């Protein structure tokens, strides 16, 4: 019947609106507990980033200044927008053979979209995503970074 439908309509509208107002009203009353604002940069010391956040690509080095990059260029191939460029060199091993190793791992931060594809492509886990995010510089050339530290070597046993 028409009248019954009409009243049901009005009732449904009012009750659903009240439900919404109840939620926002709860937030209003409990704003101290629930507020999620980070007061950056006041809380820079205690700032906790979310686990999923990706800030930049880094190459971890251990205490002997060694990394795990073999120069296979899998990350360079995986990168969708040419952020990574790997310059390799041939390095003599103690056995007298020559072995491929990286000379420079070029990482262009201004092109990176933090898609994580390079990290997934890396067979040796040499690169990973870091959570630093304060990247602003006055000269954009500074955004082109060299990830391997000077005189660093590939770790023993990493193939």
């Amino acid at each position, binding site marked *: 019947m028409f009248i019954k439908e009409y009243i049901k*309509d*009005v009732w449904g509208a009012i009750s659903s*609106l009240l439900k*919404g*107002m109840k*939620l*926002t*009203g709860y*937030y*209003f009353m409990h*704003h101290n507990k*629930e*507020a*999620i*604002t980070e*007061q950056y940069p006041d809380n820079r010391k205690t700032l906790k980033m979310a686990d999923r956040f990706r800030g930049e690509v880094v190459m971890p080095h251990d205490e002997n200044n060694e990394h795990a990059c073999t120069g296979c260029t899998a990350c360079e191939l995986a990168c969708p927008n040419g952020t990574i460029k790997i310059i390799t060199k041939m390095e003599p091993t103690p056995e007298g053979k020559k072995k491929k190793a990286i000379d420079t791992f070029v990482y262009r931060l201004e092109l990176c979209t933090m898609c994580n594809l390079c990290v997934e492509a890396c067979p040796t886990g040499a690169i990973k995503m870091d959570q630093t995010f304060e990247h602003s510089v006055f000269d954009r050339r500074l955004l082109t970074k060299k990830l391997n530290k000077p005189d660093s070597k590939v770790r023993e046993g990493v193939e």
Partner: protein
Amino acid sequence: MFSLSHITDLVNAWLYQQFPPTLALLLQFVIVGILVITLFSILGLVLIMMERRVAAWMQLRLGPNRVGPRGMFQTVADTVKLIMKEGMTPNGADKLMFNLAPYIVMMVSMVIMAPLMFADGFQIWDINIGVFFITAISSVSVIGILMAGWASNNKYSLLGAMRSGAQIVSYELSAGLSIITIVILTGSLQVSEIIAAQQTGWWIFKGHIPVLISFVIFIIAVTAETNRAPFDLAEAESELTAGFHTEYSGMKFALFFLAEYVNIFVVCAIGATLFLGGWMPFHIGSWESFNHIMDYIPSSVWFFGKTFFLIFVIMWFRWTFPRLRIDQLLNLEWKYLLPISMFNLILVTLMAIMGWHF
């Protein structure tokens, strides 16, 4: 109790004693004008601050907290910014209309303040058609919006103005009908008499269900009339940039902004006067001692408390509900609010005749 009428009478008597009557009248006009302008600026500062704080807390943010203690001077800083900005007039605009529009909107919201009773014995003009005067004058504000939209020579402005015109013209009906329910119960249009009729209890309690329905309809209709979310189609940011005030900047924009907030105050004050008893303290029938205790709270505190409660409710709407589409907006008015309020009007008339209210 604490009536402000002593002070106003004293000032009145002193003025007429000191000056010839004509000059005294003019001086009173000047005093009232200054008071209204002061109230305007204070309301602007307070309400914008309140809106920001409410919005922030409802969205789980902190809100302004940099300027002054707990961000209290944020709106002052904003006002300074707006005053210093250049007020530009676009080249293709109709210059006279463009510059006139904000002042019309502003003047309308000033004039509506006249019959409001801020406290016991503190009122600018106790005109005998009180609430009807308010509904009449508030229908002029749509002209200012239409002028602004047209004169900007901008399609967003024009669309926003058209939407806002259609909206205000249609929602005025149900706002008016819900005001009439109280007029029927009171038997007078005068604001002071409407308040005096609530001596034994506010209408929202005395008139139970029908008055409650008309109160809800009133709140919805005035939210639409002041162009606030969820009825902010006239200035829908995502569709029309800023609607009718897209081309305005600096102080002219500030006038629109201020008028919007003062309009909210005015309609909430009307709602508080009609349904919640204006400055009348909370009285329950014949409980003499209880009523006496309530009388100790000053009447202006009651008035502003009720008004700000209603303002909070309207802000609550804004930060909870999504915006309506234009067809939904008109459907809501013509298919739901108007038939319901007409039916409600008959119910209230019946109730007033049979004396079913308390």
